[in-house]
């Protein structure tokens, strides 16, 4: 496994990250002493069965949850040491989330849903409108993410989709990775999917990182390379 270092080429570095829950008298070790590094522009799949801790790890990388112990360094800053406001800024500016369920707000129109992260980032109304229009008008999907994060975290993005739509979503994620240089971390339990699209596959079981292997996908881009 890649050791944690101060190299800026890594988009995400996690060292000895644990997330434990107390449930009644039992201690649940959802993520246990995980150390990993993900390069900028890399497409990594987190593979594992249900309950392996992959979604919990993704939430930790997204700054939605805090580790019980360990460090997660993104852009040279430790997420575990950030306060709630800094974490919110991190979620707003650095990462994008793709959920298994769509999580669109049903009370808002599609445009308003797309606009919401821009509102939260206090982007001006005129620029917001332009970017939403741009996103909607483009048939090509690489511009679809309106707030353009540098890291995209996807939690079972095809879990609720039929095979055709799932394929489209995966191609979209691939295009974000290849064309926009986004670092993509995708949680999945489908090995073939990981093999097809990811550069690297990290496998978790019972909260531990048990293996790391190159996938059959295209060549991993050079560290730090972004178009």
């Amino acid at each position, binding site marked *: 496994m890649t050791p944690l270092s101060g190299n800026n080429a890594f988009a995400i570095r996690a060292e000895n990250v644990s997330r434990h829950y107390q449930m009644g008298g039992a201690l649940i070790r959802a993520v246990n002493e995980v150390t990993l590094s993900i390069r900028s522009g890399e497409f990594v799949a987190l593979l594992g069965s249900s309950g392996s801790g992959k979604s919990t790890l993704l939430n930790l990388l997204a700054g939605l*949850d805090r580790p019980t112990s360990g460090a997660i360094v993104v852009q040279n800053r430790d997420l575990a040491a950030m306060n709630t406001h800094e974490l*919110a800024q991190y*979620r707003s500016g650095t990462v994008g989330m793709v959920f298994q369920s769509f999580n669109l707000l049903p009370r*808002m129109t599609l445009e308003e849903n797309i606009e919401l*992260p821009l509102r*939260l980032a206090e982007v001006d109304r005129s620029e917001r409108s332009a970017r939403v229009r741009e996103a909607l008008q483009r048939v090509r999907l690489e511009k679809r993410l309106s707030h353009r994060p540098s890291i995209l975290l996807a939690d079972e993005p095809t879990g609720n989709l039929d095979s055709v739509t799932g394929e489209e979503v995966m191609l979209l994620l691939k295009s974000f990775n290849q064309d926009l240089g986004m670092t993509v971390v995708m949680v999945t339990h489908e090995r073939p999917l990981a093999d097809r699209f990811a550069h690297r596959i990290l496998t978790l079981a019972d909260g531990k990182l048990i293996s790391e292997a190159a996938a059959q996908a295209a060549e991993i881009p050079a560290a730090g390379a972004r178009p």
Partner: protein
Amino acid sequence: MKIGDLTELAFRNLREAVLRNSLTTLGVAVGVASLVALVSLGVGLQQLVSKRLSSSGLFNAIFVYSQADMQEMRGPRRGVSGSPAASKPLDESARRDLSRLPNVTEVYPQIRFMTEIRYDNNPYPTSVAGVPLSAQNDGAFDGMQGHFFSGPNADEAILHSEFAKDLSDNPLSLIGKDLVLRYAERQSLNSGDSANPGFSVVPHEKQLRIIGIVDTEPEGGFGGFGRSRVFIPLQLAQQLSATDVSDLSELVNGSGSVRTYSSLTVRVKTPTDVQAVENAIKGMGFATFSLLDTTKNLRLFFFVIDILLGIFGSLALIVATLGIVNTLVMAILERRREIGVFKALGADDRDVKQLFFAEASVMGFVGGIGGVFLGWLIGRVLTFGANVYLARQNVPAVNIAAVPLWLVLGAVIFAVLVSLVAGLYPASRAARLNPVEALRYE
């Protein structure tokens, strides 16, 4: 989040559960309405009383006496030094000096003398008082029968209703009829000669037309009008030069050659000018009396009444805030997942808190505006009801409720503040939601 976006999202969220939020807002409106209605009654009654009192001329009037007269009234036990005769006389010169003081609108003597009225060949001893034309605006003449003096020298008289009843069983029939005033005119023996201060008393008669009948005494019985039963124009009273009680003291004091007044009434522009003018008059060497302290007590009384009414009115608003708490807590439960999405997209605790505060304050603001209107309407209805009753009692219409601008703004601001306080718990609860758990919520 920017305040514009925050407000827009708050309105959008409120529109989603339109019935529930409308009912909550209506609750706030009813609370504000009860507050506004009660306080408007307090304010209205205060204005009514203040208007009556200020129109009576009592609160912008200063009664001026010579120091000598005041010392005589207080008696020797007070230990006032100096001879009364040495004090400054309240004469025409003093009157002119007082007129020149800033903010003084009018200075007139209080002329009252005992006399005999002859009506229908019967004698009626009574007291006559001179009334300045400015007294027409006094509340005492509001409900009078007939009309006010047609001019400063008009040979006209207004009778007190009690005296009118003495003259006739049907007092109203007196209007338009004549009476004869029999009085003793003071004629100086040697005008301007201080060596001979005496004066002679010559009986005279004056025919006057009765033009009105009044129920209350001008200036509430203060000053020179107290206990007088016949009122004539002040200028006419001065021309008659009738002897009065003060003439005797002038004889005793040896100042009979110069006509002095027992007291002068100084009118100022507004009651707030009273203190300064009163101090200036005292500085000139005269004794004064005003009802300023009484006004202060009256203001304090109504202030306390307004506070009490405000507290009672606020109770309904406080109950309404519980509705806001309930509505927002329900909204948290319904929008748990949405809050999770917000946080995942980069909203921090403060953004979520502000969103709930914005929703609470929108309900408070809209409820406040509606409540002010409702409260004003209640005040109108109460005024209408009161005036229907007063009309049946033959009493002129009054306005018992008033909604001044400060009450409008205060009520709306208070409603927003109370709503914000109501939003404290729901907002902090929503902000504390764990985004991972919130996103998992179905």
